[in-house]
């Protein structure tokens, strides 16, 4: 004795069959949302007290990264420049520009500019700039084309899978130390060979292996150990 109409058969089949897709789709959406800029802030330009343009200062004027980020080679922290660094030039040029008033105000009142941090790692991650710079990781490998950013934005997801991409195969990314701060550096090819340790390389694979060996980059099992970054 049936108490439901026979159309319920179709309905129940559709429910069972559909549930597979609904669940699969839900997981897919979750995975995508978790990796989207909504969560990671990748590519998001955050408001700053002064609309500082890296593009103008780096590409236009040719200022080296280390002129402002002074401690990047010796310290875990690259360093945010004091207002004094800005005023080295801006006491001479654009002295009356309205955009720069917060800088001058900061200089007069001796209070730091409150920049909004763009590249932020969680507190449970131990990150050190100096080791990366000294093992041949270029600035733009992680920070992206900063020399073409009118306003600073985060270039990568900063999620652990992104870190591990390099930690599991550093030879695919490293470059000679003297090229670390070169924002226009290109990986070697037959037309643009890269000279390293007296030899000329035309592909990243052999160059990367030579650099990893020469700079004594630690083995994958060492730099992917949990406590390398989570101390």
């Amino acid at each position, binding site marked *: *004795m*049936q108490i439901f109409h026979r159309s319920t*058969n179709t309905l*129940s089949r559709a429910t069972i069959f559909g549930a597979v897709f609904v669940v699969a789709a839900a997981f897919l959406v979750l995975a995508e949302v978790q*990796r989207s800029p909504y969560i990671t802030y990748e590519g998001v330009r955050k408001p700053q007290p002064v609309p500082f343009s890296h593009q103008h200062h780096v590409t236009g004027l040719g200022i080296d990264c280390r002129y402002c980020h002074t401690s990047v080679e010796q310290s875990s922290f690259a360093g945010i420049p004091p207002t004094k660094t800005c005023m080295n030039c801006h006491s001479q040029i654009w002295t009356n520009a309205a955009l720069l008033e917060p800088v001058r105000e900061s200089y007069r009142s001796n209070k730091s500019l409150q920049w909004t941090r763009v590249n932020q790692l969680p507190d449970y991650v131990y990150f050190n700039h100096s080791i990366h710079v000294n093992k041949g990781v270029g600035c733009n490998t992680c920070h992206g084309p900063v020399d073409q950013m009118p306003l600073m934005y985060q270039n990568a*997801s900063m999620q652990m*899978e992104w870190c*591990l991409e390099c930690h599991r195969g550093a030879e695919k990314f490293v470059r000679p130390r003297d090229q670390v701060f070169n924002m226009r550096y290109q990986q070697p090819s037959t037309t643009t060979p890269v000279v390293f340790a007296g030899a000329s390389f035309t592909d990243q694979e052999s160059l990367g292996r030579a650099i990893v060996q020469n700079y004594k980059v630690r083995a994958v099992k060492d730099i992917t150990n949990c406590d390398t970054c989570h101390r």
Partner: protein
Amino acid sequence: MAQRIEEERSGRKQAPVIEPGHTFGSVTDQISSIVLNRPTSTGWFIGFGFFFMLTMMLLYALAYLFLKGTGIWGVNIPVGWGFAIVNFVWWIGIGHAGTLISAILLLLRQSWRNSINRFAEAMTLFAVASAGIFPLIHTGRPWLAYWLFPYPNTMRVWPQFRSPLVWDVFAVSTYFTISLLFWFIGLIPDLATLRDRSENPFAKIIYGILAMGWRGSARHWHRYETSYLLLAGLATPLVLSVHTVVSFDFAVSIVPGWHTTIFPPYFVAGAIYSGFAMVLMLAIPIRKIYNLEDFITERHLENSAKVMLATGLIVAYGYVMEAFLGWYGGSKYDAFLLWNRLHGPYAFFYIMLWVCNIIVPQVLWIRKLRTTPAALFLISGVVLVGMWLERFIIVVVSLQRDFLNSSFGMYYPTRWDWMTYIGTIGMFLAAMFLFVRILPMISIFEMRTLLPEAEVKE
């Protein structure tokens, strides 16, 4: 047939698996009326209410745990695994009887399983559910427990597949899924019976949905038998594998008292041992209260007692071997472990373990006791206590004093440990109360196959 052969061999009359005089109609009437016609008794409300209160106590203990962290428990270094693991292993072991009865005895064509398989399977489900709580909450941050599953995460790391704790996740979740499917598929023809017989329109719709349009046609039965047999085949290895994997949690480590190859067989035997004890503890009151002595006969009690006796002897062999190898093995740590079990601070529990699991159940050699419900009920209770003590001894006494004297310590469960443990017992029994009230606790159609009417005539 099998019964006749057995009777001829042993030369004595066995109790039947179903009392004579029943017909298809009377079996269906008696079992379905428990759910449909029998008024819900005051005793049921009192019993359910009491165990529901214990369930609420469990929720309270868990809420406080999530608020405060595992510091409210008695665990600390050196005993980092306390009640949570003891209770997990105890519960998951209890579940094993249901799977053994439903799958292995089905494949072995043991017709006496037909009257106890349904509630033994329900017991398995509720026991695995109770067991599942503990590994989840002992992680400390249970809201991140999904990390135990391999899924494509943004950390691009997988669980440590070399760890038995990850094997556990797969073993237990597979076990729960298969048990649930097995139980549900076995219920479908009976749910259709309830759908057809119930007069309450609400109940009719609920049973109707659950019966999934069962008409009892030949094609339905054919598909049913095929899928049931397939699931039995899938569940059979689980009886052995699940507790083997649980024993690996210990055996794969190097702690004295854990690092031993005898663990898998002795854990599996212990699981079935405690499982049958739980089956008896539930069957004896249920058959009395619901007047089901016709269906759960002395034969069932005696057979369960025999399984207990056999598995209990395997467990005894395990204990003897552990003690023997402690003395004979030549490892001073193992020798110390034996000494510590016998003379250490928990020696009383070790002695009680032998009394409960090895000495007391030997009375089951006496046939009179195997067929006396009250005696079986008591012995089963003793065995359940004994099996709990076994896990306590394995977990706590091994960790409490291992290699370094400087890191010896004691373990004392706190009131939160006890509340969680007793709470899961409450949850288990509250679920059993609901089960006997709303579902047929004995498989109606499988009981009918045992009747003389069901014999096919040429």
